[in-house]
């Protein structure tokens, strides 16, 4: 361990008492970064059966989410422990960990597994990091070697590919109406028509399937794809012609889908801070420097009160207007002044609402009684993620953000976002307090009424990610 009781073992022969104290204290302060290395857990709600709700599948590029990690002081080595399973036990993919500021990243291959398991991803930075750091953790799917079957194609527009069953049946089990898929659609070049643009795309990720459930009507289906046809035009027939012979086919392959339970980040190594630990009497200002060091390092040593917000199983937090996003916390040590430093990133996505919402942070006790003073920022300018297709699907499609569309649990890329959306957001910070001594009571084993909860509300729908709350 890196912290020491000051005792006779630190004494040098004929050393003055002040030098003995200065030496010992300096050594302890230097050891804070490594002795108090941090850990952060991002665990996502599961169903009652223990199945993860967060599910990622991506063919073209890695998609995932942004984690804001409080790394403490001078962190250099991390271990990302990802607890997961895959929907298909035979198909895995690649996990990416990217430090947003530096762009440094590591990639590891992850095998498919039917039972929950964990993989450790070591990550070493090029220079020591302190405080809050953003990491993009993302997934890119492997593709099954064998196709699951084919569908007959009947045209495409926007993010929709119209199809019919080939040979009388779809090559997948039909659920009612509209449901999630995680497949790759490969359009056979042999049946293509002249391309509308050069190098048109022939492969699309299928994120959902919608079909006609009325038995009196033809069994037409719609594959909802990503990216959209209009951005990356495929070579597709516009319709089935009456005397046109065989219909063109599209082949479906399964993508490795990650079912995510949690990501835990441990600071595995931190460098000692810059203070040297020579004999104190060799530095005339060492005591003053030590004093400053202990005070200055307070910010990075403050305990975390929260590291994650989610709602309804979505990664990050889709916070509908007027509703609450909450997190619980308690303090283990009394303080004379109590404050919370809350920070997060957010975007708006609902085109029918203002992108200048009022955002409020407040603290409540277990009786829902206000503690301290609520803080409201009025008309915060929040970027809006625009629709990625000109044709929106009511039941969910590639509108707003990939899979982060509130209420859509039937999207094959759900709970994930491209990394660029993270940089598009607005940072929001609240400093709550200070409050009177004892206003937040100390929480100990067995006590009641000493756990509080922070809550965020807004007047427009928000997507919140990269959340952190520090108590001091």
């Amino acid at each position, binding site marked *: 361990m890196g*912290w020491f*009781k000051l005792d006779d073992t630190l004494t040098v022969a004929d050393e003055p008492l*002040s030098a003995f*104290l200065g030496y010992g*204290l300096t050594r*302890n302060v230097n050891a*804070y970064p490594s*002795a*108090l*290395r941090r*850990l952060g*857990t991002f*665990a996502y*709600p*599961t*169903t*009652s059966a*223990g199945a993860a709700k967060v599910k990622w599948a991506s063919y073209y590029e890695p998609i995932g989410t942004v984690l804001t990690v409080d790394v403490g002081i001078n962190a250099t080595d991390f271990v990302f*422990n990802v607890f997961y399973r895959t929907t298909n036990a035979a198909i895995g993919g690649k996990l990416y960990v990217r430090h947003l500021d530096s762009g440094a990243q590591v990639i590891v291959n992850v095998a498919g597994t039917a039972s929950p398991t*964990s993989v450790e991803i070591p990550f070493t930075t090029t220079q020591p990091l302190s405080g809050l750091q953003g990491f993009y953790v993302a997934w890119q799917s492997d593709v099954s070697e064998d196709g699951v079957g084919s569908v007959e194609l009947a045209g495409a527009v926007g993010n929709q590919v119209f199809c019919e069953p080939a040979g009388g049946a779809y090559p997948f089990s039909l659920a009612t109406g509209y449901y999630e898929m995680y497949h790759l659609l490969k359009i056979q070049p042999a049946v293509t028509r002249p391309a509308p643009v050069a190098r048109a795309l022939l492969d699309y990720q299928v994120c959902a399937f919608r079909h006609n459930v009325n038995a009196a009507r033809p069994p037409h289906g719609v594959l909802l794809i990503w990216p959209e046809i209009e951005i990356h035009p495929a070579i597709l027939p516009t319709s089935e012609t009456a005397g046109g012979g065989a219909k063109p086919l599209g082949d479906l392959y399964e993508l490795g889908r990650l079912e995510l*339970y*949690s990501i*835990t980040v441990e600071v595995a190594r931190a460098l000692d801070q810059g203070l040297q630990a020579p004999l104190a009497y060799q530095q*005339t*200002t060492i*005591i*003053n420097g*030590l*004093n400053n060091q*202990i005070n200055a390092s307070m910010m990075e*040593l403050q*305990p975390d*009160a929260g590291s*994650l*917000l989610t*709602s309804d199983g979505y990664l990050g937090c889709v916070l509908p207007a007027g509703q609450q*996003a*909450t*997190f*619980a*916390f*308690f303090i*283990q*040590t*009394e*303080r*004379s002044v109590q404050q919370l430093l809350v920070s997060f990133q957010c975007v708006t996505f609902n085109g029918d609402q203002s992108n200048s919402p009022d955002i409020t942070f407040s603290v409540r*006790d*277990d*009786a829902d009684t206000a503690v301290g003073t609520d803080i409201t920022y009025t008309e915060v300018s929040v970027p809006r993620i625009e629709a990625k297709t000109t044709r929106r699907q009511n039941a969910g499609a590639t509108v707003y953000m990939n899979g982060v569309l509130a209420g859509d649990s039937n999207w094959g890329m759900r709970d994930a976002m491209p990394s660029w959306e993270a940089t598009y957001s607005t940072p929001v910070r609240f400093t709550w307090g200070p409050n009177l001594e004892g206003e937040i009571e100390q*929480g100990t*084993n067995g*006590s*009641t*009424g*000493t*756990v*509080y*909860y922070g809550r965020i509300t807004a007047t427009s729908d928000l997507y919140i990610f990269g959340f952190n*709350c520090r108590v001091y």
Partner: protein
Amino acid sequence: MGFIVPTQEPAPATGLAAGDTIQALSMEDLLLRDRFLFATRRRLIASLPAVTTTTSASYQVAYGFQAKLLPTSTGTLIFGFVVNGDASVKVTAGASTATVTSGASNSRIGVVTGVSVGSWFGVTVEVKSNTGAPLTIKGIYIAELVLTDADLP
């Protein structure tokens, strides 16, 4: 003089600027602050978001994750939650389990002891309603237990 961890954070030491005459009181402030910081800055293990129970009287798995304690930990986790009714929260860390029942709309704190130190272990958090109605747990906070005088080296 006993070896104590202050219950409140000591005020920053003063009178330690260059040229000041260093007084014993200032040095004691530094010592107390050093002990306080080390003993109370424990790892946050998880800040779990709000979860709503089902109506079932059986436990449902709400969260599963991996964690690791500081080498200087005592192997004890402390967890707390706020809920709007009578609910139970069961936390299993490695081979150790603790269950806390709120009894009413309340907040409660419990501990899990005997957790392995220095190696990864699995944590499972289960919840259930004791009223037959869905209840909302506003969040679950899990951290290492702070150190006491006896824990310091």
